[in-house]
């Protein structure tokens, strides 16, 4: 595979090609439009600055996803740390997979009749460990293959299968708590 040779002038076409997927992945993971926009821009800035580090052993989109996911994980960890110190009760509830409060986030691409259910799903996703949440979203909303997810998360394919299995189990447990007869 060839190395990446990106010039500032070529950035427009490069971003046009990849920014949609990166933005949507960041938006699903962070559930915040402003943060997702920031992450998307930072991903392309880092890709431009560190293009020599692209070895060509994975596809460019996988490499960009990896940068984006790392940035999102950093933001989520910072938020968790902040929540732990500023609101320990809420943090403990989140750790115990209890419904804390409904999030007001729904992805803008969700069809209208599914918005209510999607809000519950996004809220339940917040209670998943970050690596399970990432694997689940990359597979179910970004439609990445197990191999691609393993490259993004730098792990093995069986590990991805295990992450997805546990993510679905935890997600079901969490969603069941919202069920009303």
């Amino acid at each position, binding site marked *: 595979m060839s190395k990446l040779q990106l010039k*500032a002038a070529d*950035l*427009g076409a490069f*971003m*046009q090609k990849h*920014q*949609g*997927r990166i*933005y*949507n992945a960041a*938006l699903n993971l962070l559930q915040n439009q402003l943060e997702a*926009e920031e992450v*998307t*821009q930072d991903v*392309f*800035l880092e890709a*431009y*600055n560190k293009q020599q580090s692209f070895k060509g052993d994975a596809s460019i989109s996988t490499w960009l996803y990896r940068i984006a996911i790392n940035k999102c994980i950093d933001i989520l960890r910072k938020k968790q740390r902040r929540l732990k110190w500023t609101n320990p009760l809420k943090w403990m509830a989140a750790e115990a997979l209890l419904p804390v409060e409904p999030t007001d986030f729904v*992805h*803008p*691409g*969700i*069809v209208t009749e*599914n918005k209510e*259910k*999607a809000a*519950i*799903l996004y809220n*339940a996703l917040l209670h998943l460990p970050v690596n399970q949440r990432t694997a689940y979203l990359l597979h*179910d*909303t970004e439609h990445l293959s197990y191999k691609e997810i393993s490259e993004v998360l730098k792990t093995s394919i069986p590990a991805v299968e295990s992450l997805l299995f546990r993510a*679905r189990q935890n*997600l*079901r447990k969490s*969603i*069941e708590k*919202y*069920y009303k007869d």
Partner: protein
Amino acid sequence: MKKEHWVDAVINSTHQIKPAGTNPFWVIRVQQKIKNQQENRHAVIAAKWVYSAAACFAALLVLNILTFSNTAAKSSKNNIQSVIQQYGFMQTDYYFLDPSTR
């Protein structure tokens, strides 16, 4: 059973998701950030130079303190000697001298 179906419906609610639209101006923002980086690259002093300057300053400060403390100790002895010489005191006239020199 009804609960299971409901959970499945919640999980499948994102299956027909359409990608969220992006902003074409992000490219301009990123290009501006790259331009800013290139402009600031010349203005920023490398960390190694900052640390070496700080180390030199600290070394000079330590040397100054050491030199000053040595000369201050010597000069206090010299002052007493010069007074003895000037007024022709004998070395036995201890009442002028510092108790520590007796």
